């Protein structure tokens, strides 16, 4: 049901982008990285957080963590995670498949600058086994997103 909303969104806005579905799980960053054969950082994870009374989506590289202080300075308040059942209701996507496309309710979307370390990244596509490959700038443009700096610096381990 929900992969269909992403498919419809992409068909209308970016018909050249194909949904990758390999049947195996891409629900967590580690699983997605293994399934797609890319480094975890390239998995673009979409976090649903509450800032004050407003729910927003923040897309970050897979191995990055939100920094409370930077989030407060960029968005005005500390980020609080949204309960999983609310995420499904608000985005229309099941946890593990949340992406900033084809949303059930219009939400403001922010992309963390950390994504720009890569030429291409892999956000989910509305289900726990699907994703798309996309440049960070295209991702932000399609999601009507604004670029912000809210993650802790990623320490490269290799």
């Amino acid at each position, binding site marked *: 049901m929900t992969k269909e909303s992403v498919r419809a969104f992409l068909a209308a806005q970016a018909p050249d982008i194909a949904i990758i579905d390999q049947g195996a799980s891409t629900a967590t960053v580690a699983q997605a990285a293994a399934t797609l054969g890319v480094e975890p950082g390239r998995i673009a994870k979409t976090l649903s957080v509450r*800032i*004050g*009374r*407003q729910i*927003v989506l923040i897309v970050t590289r897979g191995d990055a963590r939100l920094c409370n202080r930077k989030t407060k300075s*960029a*968005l*005005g*308040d500390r980020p609080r995670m949204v309960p999983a059942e609310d995420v499904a209701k608000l985005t229309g996507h099941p946890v593990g498949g949340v992406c900033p496309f084809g949303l059930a*309710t*219009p*939400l*403001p*979307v*922010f992309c963390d600058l950390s994504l720009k370390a890569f030429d291409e990244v892999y956000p989910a596509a509305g289900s726990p086994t699907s994703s798309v490959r996309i440049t960070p700038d295209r991702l932000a*443009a399609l999601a*009507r*997103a*604004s670029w*912000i700096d809210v993650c802790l610096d990623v320490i490269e381990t290799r």
Partner: protein
Amino acid sequence: MARMTPATRTLDAAGVPYTLHEYVYAPGDGAVGLQAADALGESPACVFKTLMALADDKPVCAIVPSDATVAMKRLATALGARAARMMPPADAERLTGYHIGGISPFGQKRRVPIAIDASAMAQSHIYLNGGRRGLQLRLVPADAVRALAAIVAPLV
């Protein structure tokens, strides 16, 4: 700079990217947003008007598409109030420090709760009043939400 307004100063200070668009403002023509959309050659759906209202008698700000009418009940609900009504123009001018026709949601004299219609999130860019008659700001909707700490909700 002649183009500087409290709105542009607020955006500059917050590091929010925007562009300025000027048009010839026709006084007394009523629908400021619609006139701006027409003058800029943009769809009214992406040119938003800024309205000052009272929600449970407290000042608030509503941002809706220029061709739409704000649903007062929805505005009240979005801001956690029971009822809302329009603010008299003279009060809006005094409270915001802007003139009617040039009321921007940014850089108002006093910070008030702000709600923006959810339809803005589907636009690649939106236009908002720049704080002077005949001046519009073009920016990414999520940037407007961030800079205003606005609540996103259906308001029309």
